[in-house]
């Protein structure tokens, strides 16, 4: 669905369309959830689209990502098919995981998405291993590992980053710092206050960028990916961003103010900012912007429709499915 090596400057069309696809996809989910058509809970990344799209757009074909519990955006940005993800969430047999995984386990290994993960920081050591494969097979590919600010306090973060540094693995550690774990503010949970600054503990580079600025994310990841690809080892890229919705469906937002949410949404929204810049810098016309937004909305509407038509997940071969 998306091309690789999308540049927010020179090829704004896919970049903007993708950001809208991500948002529209999750808005559609909210609606389906309200209508009782989904099971379980879900973690929405509305407000974080620039990070997912900026990072994945800086990758090359064949590059891998690992994702998180908040991973719909990563999947779409890495070229996943919204229809297959939607089918998964709608418990369809043709969904990415045949209805077995759901929102927290979307994966598309064939296309380089090594999977969302319900365990905070659970994908970090996996990303290191995927990086090792690239080194040992000399594929020239790299791995981008998305993780949250909260994940940076798990032991797995430490072990994975240390290993990647001593083995000089081609990994970009992409921290989506959306200011909170579930309810704990990043500055309270994270001694030292910065995930990027922790890079120096491992003798690697850490950069902190505005995660709501798709240009900044793209450029930082492109540089880190280039370094990784050319044998220079891993980088931590910390993207400061924000989620507008609650952590998951049970969140009453008691740990933050409505004012804070409004401020981020009204003044720093990544899509609005990108559109504004596209317009003021003359990179796209207003009518193009409108068109891409509509294209994205149509894409998602169609994906939902198609997904709804898919056959339901089946118990037929369930009992034998734990083993390959």
């Amino acid at each position, binding site marked *: 669905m998306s091309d690789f090596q999308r540049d927010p400057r020179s090829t704004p069309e896919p970049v903007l369309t993708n950001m809208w696809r991500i948002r529209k996809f999750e808005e559609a989910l909210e609606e389906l959830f309200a209508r009782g058509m*989904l*099971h*379980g*809970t879900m973690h929405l990344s509305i407000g974080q689209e620039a990070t997912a799209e900026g990072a994945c757009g800086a990758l090359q074909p064949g590059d891998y990502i690992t994702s998180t519990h908040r991973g719909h955006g990563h999947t779409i940005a890495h070229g996943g098919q919204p229809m297959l993800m939607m089918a*998964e969430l709608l*418990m369809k047999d043709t969904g990415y*995981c045949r*209805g*077995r*995984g*759901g*929102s*927290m*386990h979307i994966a598309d290994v064939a296309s380089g998405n090594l999977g969302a*993960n*319900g*365990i*905070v*920081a*659970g994908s970090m050591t996996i990303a290191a291993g995927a990086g090792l494969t690239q080194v040992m097979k000399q594929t020239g590919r790299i791995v981008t590992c998305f993780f949250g600010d*909260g*994940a940076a*306090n*798990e*032991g*797995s973060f430490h072990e994975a980053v240390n290993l990647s540094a001593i083995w000089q693995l081609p990994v970009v550690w992409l921290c989506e710092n959306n200011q909170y*774990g*579930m*309810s*704990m503010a990043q500055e*309270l*949970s*994270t001694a030292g206050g910065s995930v990027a600054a922790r890079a120096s503990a491992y003798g690697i580079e850490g950069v902190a960028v505005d995660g709501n600025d798709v240009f900044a994310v793209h450029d930082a990841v492109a540089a880190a990916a280039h370094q990784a690809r050319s044998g220079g080892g891993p980088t931590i890229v910390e993207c400061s961003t924000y989620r507008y919705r609650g952590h998951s469906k*049970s*969140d*009453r937002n*008691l*740990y933050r103010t409505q004012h804070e949410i409004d401020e981020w949404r009204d003044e720093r929204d990544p899509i609005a900012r990108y559109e504004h810049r596209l317009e003021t810098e003359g990179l796209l016309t207003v009518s193009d912007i409108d068109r891409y937004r509509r294209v994205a909305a149509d894409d998602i509407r169609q994906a939902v429709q198609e997904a709804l038509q898919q056959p*339901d*997940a*089946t*118990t037929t071969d*369930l*009992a034998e*499915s*734990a083993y390959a």
Partner: protein
Amino acid sequence: MPETSTYAAAVRAALDLLLRHDDRVFLAGEDIGVYGGAFGVTDGLLASYGADRVRDTPISEDAIAGMAVGAAITGLRPIIEMQFSDFVVNAMDPIVNQAAKLHFMYGGKVEVPLVLRAPGGGGTGAAAQHSQSLEAWFAHVPGLKVALPSTVQDACDLLLAAAADPNPVIVLEHKLLYKTEGPFTLPASPNEVTEPLGRARVTRPGTDLTIVGYSIMAARALEAAELLAQQGIDAAVIDLRSVRPIDHDTVRASVTKTGRLLVTHEAPQSAGVGAEVITGVVESDALDYLLAPVERVCGLEVPMPYARELERSVIPQVDDVVAAAERLMKA
């Protein structure tokens, strides 16, 4: 005159009682403060007791549990929460290699009075990494005790018993039970609960077969027994309540009367706690009373799937217990 409560509120009431009566007690876990816990269990406790005694932690399960060990051996009484029981995977060293072993390893000269609470089980659509029932692991570890309340009253009482115990105790609550209501009497003080951990309860007497379960399957077993009664099958139901230690005597006594044994749990069948319950019978003279092969009604041998129907077919339901009981009566 007992009032009613939800299971979650009964856990909260026990925590409140403990915090009020013992200033060595403190809570720690992820999002247990202002968020009130992922399932609302600790809601309001931060407001009552302050951030010193209701401690939000970073997402660091290993540190939460290890910290609790260190606090316990120096005189505090930590009650920690794993947000989902699945996340104990990140804290197995402090639980198994430290908490469970220090008393023995250090020659009996130290106690580790900590309680680890965690919600387990499926049925919420949270899939493979948020739905496990891992009690069998801990049931296998000398030095630990493991309790699984199935009723509102036990949600409080077993927690109080755990907190009173000088040993590390794992209390596994069940997510689907949190909102269930039932009769509830709040003890006036933590010391009012004097029954030690490790006693099963016969929740329904019966003469035709013995159904043993715990946690949500103890509740479903009771429902199944009611349905079976309508067919004239009189099932005894035993709520195990604790899987370490296991009250083998109560099970044996029932089996010698009924001659038939059905064991049920949500965890996968292989190497589950059910096998231990069954073995407790057949390595005793109660074996002679068995009229038919034992039955197990357990979780399917797969990770928990997301889709509603798939999830339902992996987790034992009331119908499955009824069907197995019928089979058992025909055998």
